[in-house]
């Protein structure tokens, strides 16, 4: 599923930033909060679910080629990080749901 349609199809997630690569493929949900593990293991095009809402998570998403970040458990970016996401063109969504529930929603959307 392409990132643009993916974002539109999950109304449970709030959109913090729509990135500039909406034609890319979303491949799989991926969950991890430790950045070096996420960085090393995340498949390309992953919808990355994490509670780690900071500038380093944005860097990891960009460098490891995640399709988008989903901030779970109500975590949120501050103003300067939202500006950074816009500048780097990274798609960031957020939700009050736990990590597993977010990943399950993504999985179902990609496979249904």
């Amino acid at each position, binding site marked *: 599923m392409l990132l643009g349609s993916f974002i539109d199809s999950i109304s449970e997630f709030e959109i913090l930033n729509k990135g500039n690569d909406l034609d890319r493929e979303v491949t799989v949900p991926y969950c991890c909060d*430790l*950045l*070096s593990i996420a960085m*090393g293991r995340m498949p390309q095009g992953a919808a990355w679910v*994490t509670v780690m809402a900071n500038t*380093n998570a944005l*860097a990891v998403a960009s460098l490891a080629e995640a399709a988008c970040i989903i901030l779970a458990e109500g975590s949120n970016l501050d103003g300067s990080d939202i500006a950074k996401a816009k500048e*780097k063109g990274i798609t960031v969504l957020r939700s009050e749901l736990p990590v597993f529930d977010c990943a399950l929603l993504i999985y179902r959307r990609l496979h249904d």
Partner: protein
Amino acid sequence: MNESITLNYDVDSSDFTRAGEASSNVKRTLKLMDVDPEIVRRVAISLYEGEINMVIHSYGGEIKVIITPDEIEMVLRDKGPGIEDTELAMKAGYSTAPDNIRSLGFGAGMGLPNMKRYSDDLKIESKVGVGTTVRMKVYIS
């Protein structure tokens, strides 16, 4: 591309707002040069881990990246404090990162293992009280 390109960056200690700038810049440059995406990804991951290590652990230093038709060489040189036991530092899961760094999502003890895994060649020279130089190569062909 027949000539080599050298990119230089300064890395400040503890400056997390700029951490990753060198890696992002190198990644962008390699993409523009049409380098194979998997090679670009491996360079970006290896270099970011090294860059973050410098921000977390060192007193600052510099990164030099040399891109040739055959390979990408990354040299990260810091001004100390040096690694006491390099072999132990290479062990997956071993970390000396303090709690404030862990709360940022680092400190999993996977930095050096990731650098080893994603580069084709990794050499670490370190002297306590002097500094550390990390050399990594990713072969293009």
